[in-house]
């Protein structure tokens, strides 16, 4: 009979920031696991003082996934832990598959929750850019997961006091970070209250000024879908919303001439109110919209700007 991974375990988490750490502790608790160890990759002075039994700081600080993999593997083996929870970030997604192989563990990426069953834990993960939930069971004693950031609040003061220790980073001689360049701060759409997004329905690059005018009238940020960045090269990458761009959650999101492929909708589907303007009434964008207008954007956008100007 196959043994399945079951909950009520002790976990190691990896975090770079305090709120990420809190989110992962909440995830561990929701999985009936206690967060025993924290591998901290943030600023040394910001290491959380409560929430986990021990925080491990690697010195010198490196972000090389191979060394992080080796460290997590050692801690899990030394302490007999059975659950590894990493954030669903570029770093977490890069480290977790290696850790899973190293620990002979089953891996589930993008976990949003779990349920218990008579045959072990069933993890829920997002797939297809967030439109599909896969129910996954792990057939190993140890499970490695990346968790999607949750806003679940945990009373950190009620949790154990953290014992902080530093350990030397395992060395890797095959690879080194030669140069790091900080990019200028991006035009951050993630904090915007209103976003106007343009897509393939725009016929010419100069027509984007029409969308820009509407954005100004609404005091909104301008965004766009992938084709305008990657195929037509009309807009900078910073404005791209979707799977390969940014994820945004404004109060109002107006999608103009965007068909609504999963690639795009995953980046905006949690906005409070979604409006779609598209000439094709069968466009999938209308399925994720609160309000839709089927029509010519070249008439609707100026009309919107005009009426907003009146009020």
């Amino acid at each position, binding site marked *: 009979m196959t043994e399945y991974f079951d909950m009520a375990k002790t976990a190691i988490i990896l975090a770079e920031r305090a709120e990420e750490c809190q989110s992962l502790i909440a995830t561990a608790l929701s999985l009936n696991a206690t967060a025993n160890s924290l591998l901290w990759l943030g600023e040394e002075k910001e290491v959380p003082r409560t929430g986990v039994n021990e925080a491990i700081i690697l010195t010198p600080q490196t972000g090389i996934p191979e060394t992080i993999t080796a460290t997590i593997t050692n801690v899990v083996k030394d302490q007999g832990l059975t659950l590894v929870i990493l954030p669903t970030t*570029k770093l977490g997604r890069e480290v977790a598959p290696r850790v899973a192989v190293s620990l002979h563990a089953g891996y589930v990426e993008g976990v949003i929750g779990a349920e218990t069953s008579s045959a072990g834990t069933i993890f829920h993960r997002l797939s297809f850019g967030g439109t599909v939930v896969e129910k996954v069971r792990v057939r190993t004693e140890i499970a490695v997961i990346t968790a999607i950031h949750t806003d679940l609040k945990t009373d950190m003061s009620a949790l154990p006091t953290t014992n902080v220790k530093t350990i030397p980073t395992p060395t890797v001689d095959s690879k080194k970070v030669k140069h790091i360049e900080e990019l200028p701060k991006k035009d951050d759409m993630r904090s915007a209250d209103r976003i106007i997004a343009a897509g393939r329905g725009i016929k010419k690059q100069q027509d984007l000024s029409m969308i820009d005018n509407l954005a100004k009238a609404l005091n909104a940020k301008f965004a766009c879908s992938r084709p305008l960045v990657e195929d037509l090269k009309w807009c900078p990458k910073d404005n791209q919303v979707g799977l390969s761009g940014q994820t945004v959650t404004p109060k109002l999101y107006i999608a103009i001439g965007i068909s609504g492929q999963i690639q795009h909708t995953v980046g905006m589907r949690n906005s409070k109110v979604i409006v779609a303007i598209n000439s094709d009434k069968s466009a999938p964008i209308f399925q994720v919209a609160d309000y839709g207008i089927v029509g010519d954007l070249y008439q609707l956008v100026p009309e919107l700007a005009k009426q907003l100007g009146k009020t």
Partner: protein
Amino acid sequence: MKIACLAKYCVDPANLVCDKATGHYDFEGSPRKINEVDQNAVEEAVKIKTTTDCVVHIFSVGPTEAAKPMRELLGMGADRAFLISDPEVRNADSHAIADLLKRAIQKQGPYDLILAGYASEDSYAGSVALMLAEMLHMPHVAYASKISVDGQALTAVREVDGKVETIESKLPALITVTRELNTPRYVSALQTLRVPRDALTTLRLSDLGETPEEYASTCRAEILELMTVPTNRKNILLDGADTATAVIKLLDALRDDGVL
């Protein structure tokens, strides 16, 4: 020099077939295609081939129908392709796929460089290539947007968390690439037709020295069910007699919702 590229014949997320009554997706019944960003990996390998003396091989695990799009990838200028296809390969998780690729790559290799897209468009876990790197004890660079290979070493540029990192690694190494890396060349039907028949080899489990039972034991996670994520949207279509009326209705609704 030998380069291996990994390609996934993935479910096309733009054309997923869904049973509206049950909310369940029909993966088997949905159309498939080669994962777009894996084409960027093949393009890069073929570019390296123009300046360096090397061979480019492509590896994939998939159904026999994947042979046709694999030939299109060969048309880009790769030398050989290996399609691991066996009726016993069912319910594979990322570990099982990585294990099959490892066996094929060890059999055909060793390779100096392994290239793959950073994630697939369907499951988007981005895990198979990195698992393979760990299995082969190779360093990796993920999310590369620039690559240069020089003799026994490579330099790759990647963007993470508002920083651009330049990374040097010894070979052999594995790199996952993004779409910014290059623009995959267009392959005409004629170029695909010109691909030699024997450039594509289908590998069975037995060719990889594995029994169906051994294969099954490499599957560590099993998908029990696929569900649509429910959306709680109003789905109100505002069709007025004219543009102005539709816009008035929209602005009224947005004011009522308190977002204007």
